[in-house]
């Protein structure tokens, strides 16, 4: 570490966001790269800890953060890029959308703003693309083994790339019309423009990965066929079954799952025509987003851009504290009040609110009937319970309701059934330490195994599954 006092000399600089007024007028990414000289100052804020909590506690893929920070400071971008790619296949994605648990665990964050780790990651990988250092890395040999990867999201892509680089013949099956899964259709363009994915896919294709879109594995091709044609199968289909809100009025028009809504806008941005009657638009509407998480925020940002009249976000849980509670110390993920870039663009936020009913007119939703909740303090096991506050019922105007309450598990379709893969109590695939399911040669990766989680965790699980499959194929 060349400059141990960096953190004392320089303050954290936040990555630049385009001004709200400008950015709500388009769907382009809101974050811009910091100029290069500023980036060295950010990199040298890293203290090169004896125990880098960011790396070994915060980061699911165990990015070697202090090592590449050091390389950025030394302007050895090439080595930084190698170190980054050693643990992560899609740093240009995590560099854009990761909530950065590494930064929460950064030792600077004990009493100062953390190192801008996520943004440094983005800078490193974009530097690499610019310099054309990121090129296909084909294995250069073939094992003669064939692997099918089901799903092309943040778990499927790393799994496919790792396997291809190990000399296997890899086919990715994607039921949608484009490759990318959640990355393609789940994340709004203003957070992740889609050329970013395409650029990486080109590399993967050159490395020998074959992408088959529009193929619903298990339906369009049978599980038996897949077993016959492939030496291993990696199930990376995500956890796309969304959590529903089965209250009266749920079937009213204008009540949609967030994913339906978000993916449609991405398609629109990509130039696809949306068939008449299927369009969901917030233009001029009063929008209520149910669910306070990232998907909820994405709905807000999209609604704002579509020209919503008002946007209200409601959340069942109570309003989080401004700062960490003693029971939620560093380096754990801080459960605190945050404002996402979409929320910053304007919306009303409500907490401790439960929706009792959707009220409609002419088959279309018009209002929500809600009630306020009183949450108890955590009990010995740390769980909290709630009760309705008597007389707190109220109504919310809503022409468009977007359900962003998370996802429950992988879809239990024909493929899962026909392969005979075991499912746990929560509906997730069961996988062993090698990521293998109960069926020999069938591996699970990503949200399909752990339930909906972060992109970065999906990448990690995709890599683990690839490593497991590689060991299996090598007979080790």
């Amino acid at each position, binding site marked *: 570490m*060349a400059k*141990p*006092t960096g*953190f*004392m000399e320089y303050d954290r600089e936040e990555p630049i966001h385009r001004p709200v007024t400008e950015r709500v007028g388009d769907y382009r990414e809101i974050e811009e790269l910091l100029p290069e000289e500023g980036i060295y100052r950010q990199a040298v804020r890293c*203290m*090169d*800890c*004896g*125990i*880098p*909590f960011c*790396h*070994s*506690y915060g980061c699911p893929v*165990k990015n*070697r953060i*202090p*090592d590449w920070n*050091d390389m950025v400071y*030394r302007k*050895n971008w090439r*080595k930084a890029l*190698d*170190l980054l790619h*050693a643990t992560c296949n899609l740093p240009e994605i995590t560099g854009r959308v990761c909530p950065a648990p590494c930064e929460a*665990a950064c*030792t*600077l964050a*004990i*009493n*100062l703003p953390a190192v801008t780790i996520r943004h440094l990651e983005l800078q490193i990988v974009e530097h690499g693309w610019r310099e054309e250092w990121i090129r296909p*890395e084909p*294995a*250069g*040999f073939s094992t003669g083994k064939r692997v099918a990867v089901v799903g092309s999201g943040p778990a499927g892509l790393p799994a496919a790339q790792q396997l291809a*680089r*190990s*000399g296997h013949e890899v086919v990715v099956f994607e039921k949608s019309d484009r490759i990318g899964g959640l990355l393609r259709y789940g994340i709004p363009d203003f957070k992740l423009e889609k050329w970013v994915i395409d650029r990486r896919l080109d590399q993967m294709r050159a490395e020998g990965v074959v992408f088959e879109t529009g193929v619903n594995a298990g339906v369009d091709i049978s599980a038996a066929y897949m077993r016959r044609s492939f030496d291993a199968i990696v199930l990376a289909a995500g956890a796309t079954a969304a959590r529903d809100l089965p209250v009266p009025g749920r079937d009213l028009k204008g009540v949609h799952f967030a994913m339906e809504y978000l993916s449609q806008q991405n398609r629109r941005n990509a130039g696809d025509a949306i068939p008449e009657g299927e369009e969901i638009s917030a233009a001029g509407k009063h929008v209520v987003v149910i669910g306070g998480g990232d998907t909820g925020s994405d709905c807000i940002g999209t609604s704002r851009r579509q020209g919503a009249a008002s946007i209200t976000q409601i959340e069942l849980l109570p309003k989080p504290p401004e700062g960490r509670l*003693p*029971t939620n*110390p*560093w*380096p*754990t993920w801080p459960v605190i009040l945050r404002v996402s870039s979409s929320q910053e663009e304007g919306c009303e936020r409500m907490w401790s609110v439960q929706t009792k009913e959707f009220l409609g007119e002419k088959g279309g939703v018009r209002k929500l009937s809600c009630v306020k909740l009183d949450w108890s303090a955590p009990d010995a096991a740390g769980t909290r319970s709630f009760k309705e506050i008597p007389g707190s019922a109220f109504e919310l105007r809503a022409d468009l309701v977007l359900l962003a309450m998370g996802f429950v598990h992988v879809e239990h379709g024909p493929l899962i059934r026909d392969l005979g893969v075991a499912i746990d109590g929560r509906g997730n695939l069961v996988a062993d330490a090698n990521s293998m399911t109960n069926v020999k040669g069938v591996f699970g990766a990503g949200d399909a195994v752990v339930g909906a989680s972060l992109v970065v965790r999906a990448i990690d699980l995709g890599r683990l599954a690839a490593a497991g499959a590689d060991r299996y194929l090598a007979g080790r």
Partner: protein
Amino acid sequence: MTAKKKPFRINASGVPKPTGLYDPKNDHDSCGVGFIARIDGVSLHTVVEQGIRILVNLEHRGALGGDKSTGDGAGLLLEIPDTFFRQVCPGDGLYLPARGEYAVGMLFLPMDETLAGRCSGALEQISDAEGCPLLGWREVPVDASFLGDLSGSTRPRIRQLFLGRGTHEEDAFERKLYVIRRLAEKEVASWEDVDASQFYISSLSSRTIVYKGLLTGSQLPMFYPDLKNELFMSPYAVVHQRYSTNTLPTWHLAHPFRIAAHNGEINTLRGNINRMRAREAILASPLFGDDIVKLRPVINESGSDSAIFDNVLELLVMSGRSLPHAVMMMIPEAWGPKFQMSEDKRSFYEYHSTIMEPWDGPAAMVFCDGRYLGATLDRNGLRPARYTVTRDGMIVLASETGVMDIPAGRIVRRGRLQPGRMLLLDLQQKRIVPDNEIKAAISRRKPYRKWVKDNKIELRGLFVPSEIPAEDPETLRRKQHAFGYTEEEIRLIITPMASRGQEAIGSMGDDAALAVLSNRPQSLFAYFKQLFAQVTNPPIDPLREELVMSLNGFVGRERNLLDETPEHCRMLRLIQPILTPEDMLRLRGSTHPDLVAADLDMLFPAGGDGKALQTSLARLFVQADKAVRGGATLLILTDRNMNAGSAPIPSLLATAGLHHHLIRRGLRTHASIVVESGEPREVIHFALLLGYGANAICPSTALSTIRELAESESLEAPLLPGEAVDKYVTSVKKGLLKTFSRMGISTLRSFLGSQIFEAVGLGKGVVEKYFTNTASRIAGIGLSEIAAETVARHRRGFPTDGRWRSSDNLLDVGGVYQVREGGERHLWTPESIYKLQSATRLDDYGIYKEYAALINDQSLAHATLRSLFRFRKGTPVPLDEVEPVEKILPRFVTAAMSFGSISKETHETIAIAMNRIGGRSNSGEGGEDPERNIPLPNGDSRRSRIRQVASARFGATTEYLVNADELQIKMAQGAKPGEGGQLPGHKVSPEIARIRHTMPYVTLISPPPHHDIYSIEDLAQLIYDLKSVNPRADVSVKLVSEVGVGTIAAGVAKAKADLVLISGSDGGTGASPLTSIKHTGLPWELGLAETQQALIYNRLRDRIRVQVDGQLKTGRDLAIAALMGAEEFGFGTAVLVSLGCIMMRKCHLNTCPVGVATQDPVLRARFGGAPEYVVRFLRFVSEELRETMAELGFRTLDEMVGRVDLLEVQPAIEHWKAQGLDFSAMLLPPDNGQHSPLHRVRAQEHEVGKALDHEIMALARSAMDRKEPVRIELPIRNVHRSVGAALSGEITRRYGAAGLPDDTIHLNLFGSAGQSFGAFLAPGVTMHVRGDANDYLGKGMSGGRIVVTPPDGATFLPHKNVIVGNVVLYGATGGEVYLHGTAGERFAVRNSGGKAVVEGVGDHGCEYMTNGVVVVLGPTGNNFAAGMSGGLAYVYDETELFDTRCNLDMVDVESVWQVEDVKRLHAMIESHFRYTGSQRAAQILENWESRLPLFVKIMPIEYRKSLERMRMEEEMNTESVSATEEVYRG
């Protein structure tokens, strides 16, 4: 892996067999030594009497054993008392021929009469066969009535054997006697049916005789009535009083030996023995002819280091070299470029360095062969030797002055032996031969200079190769993988070395898995830990005392030791042992007939197992034999031909194996071993290779790596590849010197093959065959595991499928120093840290238990030895019957962490916490603010109950000492044993400087050794000093675990320490080279087990408490430590973690972001700790310990201590490398037939109450009570030690640091003052000695005045004579000293406030001084002002050569011209004249104008800057507060 109970065994002579971890091989000794002689050679009985008197007066330097009446040994070497024997012998029917025609053997025989007869018979037979007829036997009368248990029970039968000269000439007779002795020794030792261990020949000579035994000096004449006989006359007597670290010293290990008596220790013994063994094969001497085979082996390995030294010295002398010549070969003075000496002498040393390596270590050697009598000091001069020559032709030399009363008028000269110098009495010529005359004569005996010039081969002289092309990146990467290079190593180790030419520094302790427990492939190097000097020998300062160190080496063929020819030096001289690829080309291309290189591939088949490895090694050895027989003089072990098909044999295995193979074959001297390997890269790797026999090393892959780093601009600075390689080599050289110095070794030649390492986890088979005589106490892996680890690494570079993946461009993560996923396992992880912090913040025992589970359960990944143990089933008791937490907490201490290494906030928080629970916090070595002695308003106390006394003595004032409950002498520190430290100037804030009594912003250096502890008797002296100044405090001694620490602990117990601390090598540090943190010292489990065994064995366990520390984290750790014998426990890192430390490992950078280990006020403000966190943590730990106690059935901790029988090794440890581990020695329960206590039950019997001070205090009562001035006159002797310390302690207790008004108590003392005169002197006391004084005068002086003048009536010139010994004013913080005469080495060392005037000093004057003023009115020795960062010195430089003797690294030398300097100097010289009446002072003052220009002022550069900075600060202070703030921060 179960502990089998084996009883302890001792043979008849009292030598214990190795049992458990305790091996008597590790015993050390040290002592008082001296001689008295009549220069005219007249034999007198009074000389014998005086010799005995010297012994008695040196008795305090010896020791008593466990039974209190057995001395460790005393003896005399005398001329054969011909008159006496003529008188007594006829009584035994024995007729003696003329003087010189017969020899006397002084024999120890077995008590068993039959066996004694058998021994005598053998001896008679051998003598007869060798042509020396038996004249008869004499039973030596002895009085054994008063002997102690031990000496009584092992007492041999003592008889004298008289042999006739036969037909032999005078010298040939002596040689024959030597042959007879060796034959008899070997014959008796070969008897396996009986225990004839008591058989020993003290002497067998026609000239000298040795009377010695397991006695004290005063017992010696009582035991041997012969010595009291008036007819027993000798012109000389060599005397020795022994202090052995163990209590089972033996009769035959008493000194003197046949030629030598020694005070000190030979550090390089193992290497010396190995190399002597190698040389034996080619020994030849016309004087011995065929008899030479009878002498082999020359060395009797059962002897002590001194005995072995004596064996070799005797061989050299008997084979024709004169005694002084032989001594010069074995203990050469330093002859490096910094010493001015004649070219002939330098050539003599250079020539002989191709024949014999130095026997290195602190040594004061006295020797006598009947022809010469002399003494010498080694190059470091760490042992005292003072002499007096009298008008009536006597010379007395001893470890102390004042061992004989000599009237002042009879003294001609009083001097001291200087480093590397010799004092010689020629008994034939009847005169004292000065050092330069002896050496000039010997240096010119043969044309050594011409020989060296004509024959020496220089690397530069060989053919010059063209530049070697760089390796292509993939080839390099493959090699790096195959040799296990990691990204971390390149980043943290290699890059700093190649960028800065320095070893990398780190901080905090080592919490990573031991190599043998690691799941990752470990290099063989990782299984070795470096040993280091503690207590019995001192480490050296390789920076400040670099001038005595050397990396010179010679490679090629060695020749017959007993001969000298020009060809002996026809060897290649290497100025340092690291070779580049270009050098290798030169060696390989050599056409010189004496430089013939042969390549030996150290490779084995890729994927091969242990068998394959063994076969390949065997083949390698056969090839080596062949090459040597074919004339090769350089064996190049190389792995450059490694490829996919062949894996490299670990270079250390090949090197050590070949070295030992060649020794066994008698071929080792024929060729040198050069290692060309990609494997070595860190300093420890090079050290290990050299320590196991490599003569030079080319680290090929390391150098390629550096070239690549330089070319890709990845170093810390832009450097050309060549520059980077140079810097790297420089850092290796520095690192090697540091490695040597940790063990107190000065030269590479002594280090070669010295094997000063201990293996952890290496199997017995491997060790015996390839690392012969290396300690490996828990056994471990064999060749198959070594092969498997090598193969795993090789596969990464050369995958079996032949595929090279892009990801292979990155190396393994490493994770040894910093946590990395996929890297080495650590105990401190994010989870364990966060759980511990949460538990202590939320006061939640449940979370603590989760934390403890993370640490305690290492079943998946073991890191520590203790993780492999489990508790046996006990009989549980209810938890509430176990003593409460409050009873356990007082056994807790915190580790020594100085204010300076950690912040004020942290330091005080810890102290408050420990005082709240009744435990003890430790000040560390940085002094302590007296303010903290006063309790806070809320009742909390910030006082550190333990005060450390470390090598720098910072802030160790009398006041500091008297306010302690425990005084801890830090001999070593786990993270960096054998090393000093440094607090960089920018960290020395005004507050720290104030507390340490130094200047702000001036770098503070802690020397590697305590300059008052070079040996065990010195430690006893320091303990005595501390007990004198503060009798209420316990004295503890901090040691670090290593093989032999148990023996040292026994010595510490005998030195009367109340407490011994065994630190694990994994303890923390604020800054230390990474090499030290990782590779030096052993885990505490080994050290504690050995200590417990050794103390019980030596019957000393009952009188000393045993404390342990080193990564103690949980109650389980404590339970294991208690069962293994610890009754107290120290915490360092865990306490810091509870206060917010997150193991940044950045303490050395002052950037601790949580304010724990930083002095930066901005960062300190972020400190978030509180005393309650520490209290909670320690309560949790105790609670967990109580739970274990309840399970095991102990109600109190006392019952639990030492119950090692309740520990066992976990069955079925799932670790492929753990199978071979054997803990039986470690878990061996003591043979406790006598039911001796397993913990301390009684206090040490300190004898400070008998000191002269109590007499003085009684006489000075009015002054003490009412401050009335008193004058006291008393005689003083050398046996009066630490005079003034108890008095000063009492004054300071009553009146604080201010003491009494000046000169309130005035002492006039007559005679020779003992050691530590005026130690810790308080203000108000003046002590004037008329006579002289010994070492350590004014140690820790805090005020007052010491004056030493020659005895009244003395006629010698004071300024040409020595008046005080070595190490004066060490660590003084105040007071004045006036010495009318010259002083010894290291005058005013680490002085931080004392003022002194002296008339000449020895080497290393004003070393490490940080404050105070020294005026030297005469010559100085070499290396003046080394490491001097503060204070001032003025030297009267008549020769105008002072700058050649001054170490200019840190100081400027200038003339004295500034008014304030002139005034100060004049005033001090005036005072000197006033107090001493010095004529020299008077002359200077009288001719002030003309003498002033001869004075030079020595001004430390940093000191000047500091003064300027303070002046600036003062100005800014008056301007604005914020400006000061800026300065402070910078």
